[in-house]
């Protein structure tokens, strides 16, 4: 085993234990904090894959924005969190069965694929992944249209979230 494999196994174990804690912890604030540690583990996986930009975006967008948004939502709905009642619905065993079957199906599908255990070749000398990524995102020959559509989607989500969460009663009382 090389050092990189040992690091990968350690990070993968950390990520998976955190993910199991996310779906099993009773307290939702703790679940959101376990989500933060899962996302950190995934960011380290990106760094192991030499995707530096994606690793930084993972920390900034996922941990900095999405996880904090979750913690805000948990706190805004705190009164009805029901830490004492059952956290799983009564068909949780069927969910576990479906999840296990999904995993088994994915692994059995992947094992038939010829490229399953291939190893990565080293980067060519002078390879600049981030420059290529930036060019691919704004080049008309590549991905500029999906990039712009994603920004329109974000704008639509922003307006939609404000409209949905807006409380008309509190707006009236301020008039």
């Amino acid at each position: 085993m090389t050092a990189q494999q040992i690091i990968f196994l350690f990070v993968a174990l950390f990520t998976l234990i955190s993910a199991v804690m996310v779906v099993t912890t009773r307290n939702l604030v703790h679940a959101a904090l376990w989500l933060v540690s899962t996302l950190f583990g995934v960011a380290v996986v990106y760094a192991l894959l030499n995707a530096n930009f994606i690793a930084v975006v993972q920390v900034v967008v996922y941990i900095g924005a999405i996880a904090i948004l979750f913690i805000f939502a948990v706190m805004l709905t705190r009164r009805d969190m029901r830490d004492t009642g059952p956290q799983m619905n009564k068909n949780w065993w069927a969910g576990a069965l479906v999840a296990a079957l999904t995993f088994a199906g994915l692994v059995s599908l992947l094992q038939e694929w010829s490229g399953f255990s291939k190893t990565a070749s080293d980067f060519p000398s002078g390879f600049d992944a981030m420059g290529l990524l930036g060019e691919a995102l704004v080049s008309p020959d590549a991905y500029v249209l999906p990039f712009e559509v994603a920004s329109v989607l974000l704008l639509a989500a922003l307006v939609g979230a404000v409209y949905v969460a807006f409380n008309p009663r509190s707006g009236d009382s301020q008039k």
Partner: protein
Amino acid sequence: MVPLSWYLILAALLFSIGLFGVLARRNIIAILLGVELMLNAVNINLVSFWRYSDVFSMGGQVFSIIVFAVAAAEVSVGLALVISVYRRRNTVIADEVDMLKW
């Protein structure tokens, strides 16, 4: 060097854990946490396929960035819906939001 299969199995495990969370939890916010885990598993797959095939075609990384944007949009609208439902029905349990059920 780590073979590709390790990354794919890690992503499959993460996806299954997220799927279990989506199917089994009662709280709507916990269901959204499970969706986040599934999206992260997909992103690991995309980035590892980029790394282990032609590194000059950036499709994998570009697609994972678009998944980031979609995840941000999904979470903002989803949590706004949760807060709106909580305000009107005073609940965050998915089973109790059954106005459309006959």
